[in-house]
């Protein structure tokens, strides 16, 4: 029997820990709010700690960092293959971080929903970590689909019917695109020949010898990833969802679901096709440009804070898509860093917006003011995320944008359009922040004197530190010591 090392145990523990947490939470009575919350915090933070341990043990590694594989359905060639490379490790960090932020920093709409709130958050985290660590195509698709379930329930519990509508729309579009992906999976596996396998490394090896079969099948994967990335023209579910769903869901959507769409592109298309994408790159670049510019321009006309932030996230995803498209099959660091930066900034912004809007009882930018006078520390922490979204130097967002623009420097039009999108997005988000920061503070119209809670400020501080550290020492997150 092969000896399992500590890093392999940690790798397996990554998706399993939140799953165990969710399982245990389901046994508690719904009224045991404190115990449920404590359990949720413990498992979410434990998962983050596992990722930190993995990061330290695998730092500066190249290629495949850790891998565990067991056969599952041998007759069909399906295996339980979990692994992590540099990109996967970075995305796992993002998922564990924003999940911990969502579990600790957000509250359910009603206190009696506490159990299901924590349960679905942990399930969503487990699903997302499964997507990140799965190196078997069938396993990947299974986790990809399973993730939808907790999200559907998290999104549908908003204060209005809009949440239900948004959740339904998200599910319908996702499932429709997933059907195409299933067909794509079957075509790819068939093209790879016998004996049948779903293992990504083996598929990649075989397909490199039969490039002719790849491009047509690969197009079937693209809609599923673009829907999750909310790329143009499949983006309409995202602003509606963010404006109507509970805060926890919007944090996870902006920080987890969107970047995971991009990760899907890296993980499946990048690995299976390599550099020969048969014209797909050019097509995806223009989709990215459209998303970046469209999000930036649309954010300028928003007066609802959450819609504005949603469009800012869209624009950032567009920039990430441009970076990914240029680097698919070659150097993935630019797109991956942009995904990480936009994920962490998006989650922080939605966490901040959720707290502020809930306390104020309104999402309109014009009706929120005076944070500079009432909660300077809390608002100051949120500024790091604003700066990152606006690509201000010294933040993670700047590093991501610089790497992407550097990659596009051979194509002047793309570079200029991308820079224009960065400018518009930055102007919108800074305008909104400056607006809610200044002006007079009216204590009477705010929800209560105790907001934000201390733990929300602590979470925001941790996210802010991540944004700054990644901005000043990007090699730390990307595993490059230089």
């Amino acid at each position, binding site marked *: 029997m092969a000896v399992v090392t500590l890093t392999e145990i940690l790798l397996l523990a990554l998706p399993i820990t939140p799953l165990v947490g969710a399982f245990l939470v389901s046994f508690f009575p719904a009224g045991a709010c404190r115990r449920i919350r404590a359990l949720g915090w413990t498992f979410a933070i434990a998962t983050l700690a596992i990722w930190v341990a993995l990061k330290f043990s695998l730092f500066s590694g190249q290629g495949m960092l850790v891998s565990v594989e067991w056969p599952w359905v041998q007759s069909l060639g399906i295996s339980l293959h979990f692994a992590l490379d540099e990109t996967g490790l970075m995305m796992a960090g993002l998922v564990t971080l924003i999940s911990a932020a969502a579990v600790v920093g957000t509250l359910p709409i009603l206190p009696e929903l506490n159990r299901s709130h924590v349960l679905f958050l942990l399930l969503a985290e487990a699903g997302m970590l499964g997507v990140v660590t799965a190196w078997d195509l069938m396993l990947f698709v299974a986790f990809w689909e399973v993730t939808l379930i907790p999200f559907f329930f998290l999104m549908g519990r908003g204060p209005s019917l809009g949440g239900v509508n948004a959740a339904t729309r998200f599910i319908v579009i996702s499932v429709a695109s997933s059907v195409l992906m299933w067909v794509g999976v079957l075509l790819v596996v068939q093209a790879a020949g016998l004996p049948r396998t779903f293992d990504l490394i083996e598929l990649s090896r075989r397909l490199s010898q039969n490039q002719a079969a790849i491009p047509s099948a690969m197009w079937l994967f693209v809609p599923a990833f673009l829907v999750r990335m909310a790329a143009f023209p499949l983006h309409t579910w995202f602003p509606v969802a963010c404006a109507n769903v509970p805060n926890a869901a919007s944090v996870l959507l902006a920080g987890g679901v969107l970047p995971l769409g991009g990760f899907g592109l890296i993980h499946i298309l990048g690995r299976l096709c390599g550099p020969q994408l048969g014209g797909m790159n050019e097509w995806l670049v223009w989709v990215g440009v459209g998303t970046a510019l469209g999000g930036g321009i649309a954010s300028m006309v928003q007066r609802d804070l959450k819609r504005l932030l949603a469009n800012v996230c869209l624009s950032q995803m567009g920039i990430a898509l441009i970076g990914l498209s240029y680097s698919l099959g070659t150097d993935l660091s630019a797109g991956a860093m942009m995904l990480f930066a936009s994920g962490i900034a998006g989650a922080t912004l939605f966490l901040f917006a959720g707290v502020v809007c809930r306390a104020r009882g309104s999402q309109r930018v014009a009706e929120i003011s005076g944070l500079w006078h009432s909660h300077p520390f809390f608002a100051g922490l949120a500024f790091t995320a604003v700066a990152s979204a606006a690509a201000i130097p010294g933040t993670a967002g700047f590093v991501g944008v610089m790497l992407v623009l550097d990659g596009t420097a051979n194509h002047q039009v793309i570079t200029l359009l991308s820079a224009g999108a960065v400018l518009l997005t930055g102007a919108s988000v800074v305008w909104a922040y400056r607006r809610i920061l200044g002006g007079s503070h009216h204590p009477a119209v705010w929800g209560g004197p105790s907001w934000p809670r201390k733990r929300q400020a602590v979470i925001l501080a941790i996210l802010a530190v991540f944004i700054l550290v990644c901005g000043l020492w990007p090699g*730390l997150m990307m595993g490059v010591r230089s």
Partner: protein
Amino acid sequence: MEYLQLAANGHWLLWLVPFTMALTGSGLGAGMPRRLLTLLALAGLLLPFCQSILAVLFFLLGPAAAQVPQLKMTAFSLDGRFALAFALDAKGAWAMLLCLTVALAAMVHALASVARLAGRHRYLALILTFVASAGFLFTAQSPMPLLIGWEGLALCGAFLAGFWEPEAGGGRTGMRWLIFQRASGVLLVVGFLSRQWGETWTAAFVLAALAVRAGQLPFHGWIPGSTRAPASTTNLVHGVGSLLAATYLMDQFWPLIASAPYLAEIAGFVGAAGVSFGILAGFQQHRSQTVLGWLFMVQGGLIWMAFAVGDPVAARLLASSGVLVLGGMMLAMGDFSVSPAALGRSASGLGKFFSQRGLLVLGAAMALPPSLNFLALGRLCGSAPESTLGWLIRALTGVALFGFGWMFQRMEADAREIATSVHQIESRWPRWAALSLGGLAVTAGLGVLLAHELTPAVYGGSAGLFWASLSSGLAVLGWLLGRALSKSRPHRLTGRLTASQRTMDRVASTGLGLGEMVVQFPLISLRLLGVVIWRGLGDFIIDTLVLGTAVRSIEGIGTALRYLQNGRIQRYTLMTVLATLLLIKWMQG
């Protein structure tokens, strides 16, 4: 010399000390006694101020090729692409000293103005952060700290400008500055990235970024709005954030810009246009701070022309005098914009001292010998070539000084009216802070002359002396003419303007319409496009037409299937077939 070198070697303290003090003041300032907070704020500037004086002396008196060790942090910087490298050279030391001088004056003014207001510690911390950002910019040796400094100045300026704005202001003060400077930052980044396209592209993008920052044509739309901020902010934003930062970076990048075809000439003509435009716009203003905002644009235009004729020393002298004298005037004319109720007493105006004597010192420092500006204008006119651009420069120098004289007289009259209508600031320190800036400009000019033993080259030779003296004379003439005319037509404040004057005021405030057009045209177009994208494309076409139609089609198929399962369709089909058969039978029969 060892001590001087030590001061230069510790260049990282120039940004670290203000930044640390800013963090301390912001975090702990709320519970601090007022005197301790004042001490903290002043210490955050005085220590680097003294250090920068020693550093400047080191570069002046030290060996010709004096260098200081670089502080470089390359760990985890992705092969040095995001490295943080700092060092100090002579230009950086000069810029830092100027910045700290002006910031000290602004801080003294701010301490007196906001001493009793809640949230003062954060305002002072923002000023310190502004200075730390300037420190980053002036000591940067790699793109990363340079960009951090560049954006930091813009952001701190915007937050300072809107800090005391009441809610009725709608968060507008400083917003245009912020959005324009965001564009400037992005242009600079694109400039750095465009090396692969050729040096001309890089130079063009950098020049555009500098034009936006310096408020040169046609990117001057932010100027009128940002003059509505408190005096201590406008002084910093226009003096350090705009004029000094743009001049410093232009100085650093000038070899690149000058080597690109046509860009030096373009810079010269943009500067000339800025001078003409600034004078025209300033003439129509009835508010002293806005006049000063346009005068900063004029000074920026003169600096660009100095670069265009290949005299960066004249550009540095012009920048120094602009930052010191116009900054001093900003402080002197500053009317604290917090509502009197919030202040707890009447808003401050100018004392008799300024309105009658102090302001004259500042005016003289701008136009008369041996001020820095006089030397700079002499150098500029002396080095201007015998070409169209050269004669344009000489003519515009005269026009600029004539216009300054006239506008200065009006500002003086305005100050007199304010001084008699509102109370004075309780402390006398702010007056001395502003006055000392003007005094410094004169003393520095005299010092430069004496240090070079009155060598004609310092003031541009005999031709330079002639043109500078002529400009000074025109300034005095403008002042006298304005004074004579104002006696026959009393000065009017904004509230009592006639309709035509209000129209002219509006036209001038918007940069004769051009500045507003540059702002409004893209803004309105983008907003329209945004509505089209959001409502038209997203909501209507994608959601309603495409997705809605798809959903309705599926619903239709589902309904048909349900009817099929219910047996309704079969019955309907049977009935139809039977009816058709009966009809055929009937027709046959």
